């Protein structure tokens, strides 16, 4: 179980949890992510559904690229939203929802990588069926040297930290300051790490491209 103490200082509860009644979500005018999350914090848990619809796609894309594994990305995605619900009271009045979400994503993916390093994970047979289309087919195998496949392999060759900072830095939803906050480092350090990771990715990518040539 995750102790509340694991939530970092910058995500710590902002003052006393609101005692206001649950905020209703007005469907006539779209609320911002921040307003929706405040509604969730205030007790309107259904508002989390709208946040999921808005953000699960980009977050899942990020997690898939980070882990290179769709099933793992789904597990992490689920854990992120579970923690959002569980730790909703830690969301700050002046917080950025996306930064908070990716911060939790970083936590959950770290847990995944730690567990993955300790041995194989149990697989539900239903998962195998659900992800059967992820296996490479004949056509996909033939096309496995295409740019996307090469780039995915190049990403896999990056250190996890490099992959993480590079992928976070390419997310439109996050400023560099937010990326730095998520990585718990200075903005300058985040920039340097992202640029170093980009160069490393470029080198791996072109190396793989050379290797794939007949």
């Amino acid at each position: 179980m995750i102790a509340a103490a694991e939530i970092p200082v910058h995500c710590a509860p902002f003052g006393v949890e609101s005692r206001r009644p649950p905020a209703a979500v007005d469907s006539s005018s779209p609320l911002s992510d921040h307003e929706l999350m405040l509604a969730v914090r205030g007790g309107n848990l259904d508002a989390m559904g709208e946040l999921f619809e808005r953000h699960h796609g980009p977050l899942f894309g990020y997690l898939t690229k980070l882990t290179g594994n769709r099933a793992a990305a789904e597990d992490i995605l689920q854990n992120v939203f579970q923690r959002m619900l569980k730790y909703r009271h830690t969301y700050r009045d002046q917080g950025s929802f996306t930064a908070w979400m990716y911060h939790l994503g970083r936590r959950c993916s770290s847990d995944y990588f730690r567990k993955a390093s300790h041995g194989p994970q149990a697989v539900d047979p239903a998962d195998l069926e659900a992800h059967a289309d992820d296996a490479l087919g004949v056509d996909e195998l033939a096309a496995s040297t295409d740019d996307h496949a090469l780039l995915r392999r190049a990403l896999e060759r990056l250190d996890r930290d490099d992959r993480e900072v590079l992928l976070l830095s390419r997310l439109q939803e996050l400023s560099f300051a937010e990326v730095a906050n998520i990585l718990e480092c200075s903005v300058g350090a985040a920039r340097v790490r992202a640029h170093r990771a980009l160069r490393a990715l470029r080198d791996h990518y072109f190396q793989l491209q050379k290797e794939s040539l007949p």
Partner: protein
Amino acid sequence: MNCPECIEQMAALAAGSLDEAAAVPVRAHLAACPDCQREYATLTRTLEKLDALPARPPSHRMRAALAGMIETEKLGQRDQAPFAASLRREADRPRRRAWLPAVLQMLGVAAVLAIGLLVGEREGEHKAEARELAAVRAKVDTMSQLVEQSVLQKRTDGDRLETVLTAASAPKPDERVIDGLINTMAFDPSVNVRLNALNGLYAHADQEVVRAGVLACLVRESNPLVQVSMIDFLVAAKAREAGPVLRKLAADDQVDADVRESARRAGELL
């Protein structure tokens, strides 16, 4: 600006994170240096390809899982009774047949995990684990807390499946384990876990609450395979009270053809 200085800055320029004042000398150098231009082009190409890397959406079960999580949190918020418990209360009322609960609130994930705790305690096969579970149980004094603990302990489909199989094979499961299996059958996002929870209930088909649970789940179930299995269960349990629901299913054009046919046959048999 010389080439090493330019190379130092060009990743930031390619990523669009260089401020304008710093970008001017880099651009000026690039305009005059073919080597650095080539270097810069490789970085921008890599970034374009990274940004264009496609990512398919996650499976639909993610939405179901989120809905379940929200309901579980609501359970903790409202301190309301779980699905199976509400069925049990209704079943315990003498001669009352309107047992269908008005509110379905319990998440199968949470429920199956709750029975994981209970079964783990009862079996006592792994003493260390049993002690740990006992310690957890000692800390919780409400059902919602129990569920919360369980969700965090066993999260993957594989873990929940294992828990269901263990619970289903328990020689003398108590009321709470059976309730857990019903809740799992009702709300778990995995078809496989739901089917195994249903199979685990065959041994208890003589209990009214179990038959009522399967019938209530049949109405809300969306997977045809699970629906057909539930209909088979009701036939095996000789649940005559299922007649109206089966007739309604058999006549519903929106329902899967195999399910309609199974419902029709079951209606005739019952």
